[in-house]
Structures are given as structure tokens and as C-alpha cells.
């Protein structure tokens, strides 16, 4: 789960990581009020859960009230990579002497929280990683010891000269690691960490992602969420025991298991169709779950036909077939549905579905994909 910069900065402030004073604004008037409170040059920053805000024109320096009004008017409501900016923050402009990148992530390869520091602050770290990977210092943190102050200092001495700056940056980094662990993050990033003209080290930006698996430890996170409409559907589906991701194709998919669901989408692509979604109904043959799943597919205006691909393992195909029949009894399905049952009790499952007029059966994934694409063409 991602949170906004201002929310991440509120967490930073809680842990005494120095951030600038900021005002959260939703209207031009609020931005003007904030400008008046600072009484000097400010920066207006779009709060949107996607990278590249600066490049998209979502961050603007304003040295006059007129410019603040202009910035607020253009940024609030603007579209950045498909997301509408509803909130901005206003903070005082900083005279930057130097900027560096500091990030913590959970890393697959080292199986640790990985510390990344680079003198190339302010730009997207992925770019640096591609073009100049040697400019990123990477250090796996020992989970049993944590991050010790001298380790933090040693890293910063590689990218800074002034001992005073290093001490401040190291103090910030030790606190950032504490945030990472205590808040169950998957990413905590300060880009850039800046040194201003008064020798103060400040987190100018803040990016924090939480580990979805750890949400049970943090019931307060739900209030921080700012989901898009598609993400709201995903979260709601999740609460119903389904894993759903909406895409923009025409073939609705319902599959048991994440890997098989991906492979089913791929299969539709391979045979010239476009998948409308990823949908994993998990290991249950509960009719209610099947009904919920069908509802997501039916409510998607782009869906022209549905492919149900079930591999019976512990879940028996005849149970799934019963669930489907029950689901179809309860809802009015107006589009072609192709179903492929395989594995445990597939034969019995197919027998049950034999007389159902709504369903087109298939024996293999390839046959099912071809049939559903054909059916979608004729809708």
C-alpha cells in the first residue's frame, strides 16, 4: 500500500526526522493562505501516488502570490499518469547546497532490508540503477542487530565531506530504519535528502510503501489509503477472498490460483484476445465466491465473454461445477461463458455442466482460449 508524501512526512515527524513545515491544501484559496503564512517563496507539490510528479509539472516553485495562485490552479485537478491531483502541499522553498538519495527496501536477493545511498539525489533512482549502477551504494542490514550509527556514518562519509552533515544524515537514517521496521514498510525513501545553505540536513521528499501482508498489525493504515476506483474494487474483492486486478481487455477471466490465472491471461493474449482482468478465486468452490467473482466480470463494461479455467487439486471440479450452477441460477448471465475443468473429478464436473445451455465447455486451456475469443467476436 502506498501513502502520500504528506502522510509519510507526518510519520517522519513522529520519529523526529527533520522535514519542512507544510500545509495540506485542496483549494486555490488554501494555497494562498499557506503562501501568506510563509510570507516568502514556497513550493507547491502535487500529492499523487505515482512517480515523476516533477517532470509532469506537478511541483512548482513560487516566489510571489500570483505565481502561487497560478501553480495551484494548474496543479489541482491536473492529470498525472491517469491520476487526478486532488491535494497539494505547500512548503517553504529551500536553498539547496547538496542533495543525495537514501532508500530502504525489502530485497529479494539479500533477503534483508537493503540500504541504498547515492550522491545522485533528486533523480529517479531506477534511472541511476540503469545507467550508473556503480553510483548506488548498497548495504544489506543485519536484521538481528539493526542499523548501527557507525554503519550509517560510514555510508554517508562516502558521499559527503562535512562531518556535521554526516552526523545529521546518519541520525536521520537510523530513525528511517526504525520507521521501516516498526511500520512494516516495503519501501522507505528520502529522495532527495538535502543539505540547505544553513547546514541543516532535511528530508525534502518522503516516500513510504507498506507491506500488504502486515496490514493486520496496523489497523490504522486503512484510514491513510487513497485508492483509485480500480484499486477500491481490488480491495473489496480481497475482503471477499478474491484476488482481482482490472485490466482493459474484453475477455473476463475466472481462475483458481494466481499462477494459473496469469497463464490464462497469457493464453488469451497468445491466441489473439485481450484479458479484461486477473481474477484468482482461490481454493474454494463456495458458490457465493463464484457469484461475487461473476459480478466483477459482469460489471466490467468491456467484458464480452468469460473464460473460467479451473484446475481441480484439493478443490474438486464437481464441487466447482455445482457452485457455478448455483451461481448461474441466482444471476442473469447474458454473455457467452466458456469453461474448462481439469484435474480432480473433472469428468464428473463436466457431466454436471453438460445440460447447461449458458456454458460452452472446453478440454484444454488452448481450446478454451480459442473458443472464448471466437465467442467474444460474435457478441
Amino acid at each position: 500500500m502506498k501513502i502520500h508524501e504528506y502522510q509519510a512526512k507526518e510519520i517522519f515527524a513522529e520519529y523526529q526526522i527533520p522535514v519542512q513545515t507544510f500545509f495540506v491544501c485542496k483549494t486555490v484559496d488554501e494555497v494562498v493562505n499557506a503562501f501568506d503564512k510563509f510570507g516568502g517563496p514556497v513550493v507547491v507539490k502535487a500529492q499523487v501516488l505515482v512517480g515523476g510528479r516533477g517532470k509532469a509539472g506537478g511541483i512548482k516553485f513560487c516566489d510571489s502570490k500570483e505565481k502561487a495562485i497560478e501553480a495551484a490552479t494548474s496543479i489541482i485537478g491536473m492529470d498525472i499518469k491517469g491520476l487526478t491531483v486532488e491535494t497539494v502541499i505547500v512548503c517553504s522553498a529551500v536553498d539547496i547546497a547538496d542533495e543525495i538519495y537514501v532508500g530502504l527496501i525489502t530485497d529479494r536477493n539479500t533477503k534483508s532490508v537493503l540500504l541504498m545511498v547515492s550522491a545522485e539525489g533528486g533523480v529517479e533512482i531506477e534511472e541511476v540503477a540503469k545507467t550508473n549502477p556503480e553510483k548506488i551504494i548498497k548495504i544489506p542490514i543485519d536484521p538481528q542487530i539493526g542499523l548501527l550509527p557507525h554503519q550509517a556514518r560510514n555510508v554517508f562519509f562516502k558521499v559527503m565531506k562535512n562531518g556535521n552533515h554526516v552526523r545529521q544524515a546518519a541520525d536521520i537514517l537510523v530513525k528511517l530504519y526504525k520507521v521501516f521496521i516498526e511500520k512494516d514498510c516495503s519501501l522507505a525513501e528520502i529522495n532527495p535528502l538535502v543539505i540547505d545553505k544553513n547546514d541543516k540536513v532535511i528530508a525534502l521528499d518522503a516516500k513510504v510503501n507498506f507491506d500488504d501482508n502486515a496490514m493486520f498489525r496496523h489497523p490504522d493504515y486503512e484510514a491513510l489509503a487513497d485508492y483509485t476506483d480500480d484499486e477500491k474494487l481490488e480491495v473489496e474483492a480481497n475482503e471477499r477472498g478474491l484476488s482481482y486486478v482490472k485490466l482493459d481487455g474484453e475477455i473476463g477471466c475466472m481462475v483458481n490460483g494466481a499462477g494459473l490465472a496469469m497463464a490464462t491471461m497469457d493464453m488469451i493474449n497468445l491466441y489473439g484476445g485481450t484479458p479484461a482482468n486477473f481474477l484468482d478465486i482461490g481454493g474454494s468452490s463456495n458458490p457465493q465466491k463464484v457469484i461475487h467473482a461473476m459480478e466483477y466480470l459482469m460489471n466490467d463494461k468491456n467484458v464480452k465473454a468469460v473464460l473460467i479455467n479451473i484446475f481441480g487439486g484439493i478443490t474438486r471440479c464437481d464441487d466447482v461445477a455445482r457452485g457455478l450452477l448455483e451461481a448461474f441460477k441466482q444471476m442473469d448471465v447474458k454473455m457467452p461463458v466458456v469453461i474448462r475443468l481439469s484435474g480432480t473429478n473433472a469428468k464428473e464436473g463436466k457431466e454436471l455442466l453438460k445440460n447447461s445451455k449458458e456454458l460452452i465447455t472446453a478440454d484444454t486451456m488452448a481450446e478454451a482460449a480459442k473458443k472464448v475469443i471466437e465467442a467474444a467476436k460474435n457478441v
Partner: protein
Amino acid sequence: MSILINKDTKLVVQGITGRDGGFHTLKMKEYGTNVVAGVSPGKEGTNVDGIPVFNTVENAVKATGANTSIVFVPAPFAADAVAEAAEAGIKLIIAISEGIPTVDVIRITPILEKYGAKMIGPNCPGLISPGKSLAGILPTNIFKEGNVGLISRSGTLTYEMVNQLTTNGIGQSTCIGIGGDPIIGLHYIELLAMFEADIHTDAIVLCGEIGGDAEEQAAAFIKENITKPVVAFIAGQSAPPGKRMGHAGALITSGSGTAIEKIKAFEAAGVKVAKEPAEIPILVKKALGDKWQA
């Protein structure tokens, strides 16, 4: 022969009195796995279908000589359960539990190293050596004894592949679901090396998916170290970036971890990549040549 589990496996089930733990314990026992003990704190002295239950893994090991553990404990407590098994001297721990916080897995990793224990999973279906032993939740009826090893990040997609192999007369030595989380225990490289060393495995199927660069690392490893033929499949070619596809680890981030990159890496390493699951048995048969035993 097989890798990791065989007739000498003595299994302890952590979380044996839970719904899933109890159900799959019986399935494993039915398959012939030597399930020697269960653990459920506070329930020592009871039994599940004749299998004695202990308060701690330590007690279970002392009383039964258990050498492998399978963990069905709910996610909030699962990492702790894995650490307990390692401390009690268990050398192979299979973590079935789904949804364990990543930080918890990171925290117990040094404990596994300290005690020389290997973990499979978490968030995995476990493993099976057909005809010998099952330590997992895989549906036994689709497997067949044979000489193909299989490693997969997925559950039902693994079953799909195995079913394709079995119905085409290709048996398996050991099949392992390594788990769909970003941070997991044993990965492709360790398992490829074990299959390479196993005299009864003649070909290996590797089923990967989007996210991370483990497949790329596996490809490089295969090129240098594996003499047996490897056939691969990558799921998620049509997945959009930035969206988690069910598995916590199946996520393309900032353009890396895509299926295309992985397929390219495998092909560059001389690994045949199947376009769809149905192509797997065809490629495997070709790779096995006269080692194909129907």
C-alpha cells in the same frame, strides 16, 4: 531417488490441530508420508488420528526423531514457528502459511542460517516425491513416479503442468512449489543444483513468473552448472507493470521483472521456453530422448 524428501523423512506438523493442518496431515499420512508428530502449544498428550501432539517442536524432536517440519500456523505467528523448528534442530522446514509479513521472514533468515536449516516457502504448496513422500498440500492423484524434477513459484499452475506431464506419460522425481512471496527460502539455484546431483532426475522443468530477477539468475546458473536439460515456462507475459498479480512477489517494478526479460535470459542460456503449458510435455520428451520412460 528424489531430492529433499523420501522414505526416511520423519515429518512434524506445526499447527496440526488447525483446520488446514489437520486436513492435510491426514492426506499426507494417507499418501504414505511418515508423519511422526504434531505441534500445538498447550495440547501435548492429545493426538490427531493417532499422531502424538506436543507443546513444542523440541519435545516432538526428542520423542520422535522428526527431521522435517511443515508449518500450517496462521501468518501472524508463522515466522516464529519456522524459527522454533530451526532451533529444535529441524533441517528442512516447509512453510505453507500465506501472508507472512516480509519483515518477519527477514528477521528469521539469520536463525535458519545459524542452525543450518533450509526453508521452502512461505506461501507455497510444499513438495512431493511421487510414490515416496508428500510434505505439502499438492493433489497426489495427478503425480506419477519418474525422472523429471519440477520447480515452480506457483500452486495450481504447477498442478496444470504436472497433469500435462503425467497424462503424456512423463513421471516426476520431485516437484517443489517454492512459493509466491518476494522473500523465500530455497530458490531455483539451490534446487537446480540438487536435481543436477540426483542420479534419478534426467530433466528439469522450471516454472517461473514475473517479478524479481531469480529467473535471470537461474538462467546464468544453468548455463554454467547444469548439464541436464531444463525446460521453462514463465507466467505473466500479459501482466501490466506496477500491479501485484495475486502473489506478493508477482509484480513488475519500474520495468524490471518482466516475462520478456526472463524468457530472453533462458533462451540465451540454452533453456527451451514453452509458449503455453501444453508445450511442456513436448519439449520435455524431446529433451529426455531415450531417457523417456513411459
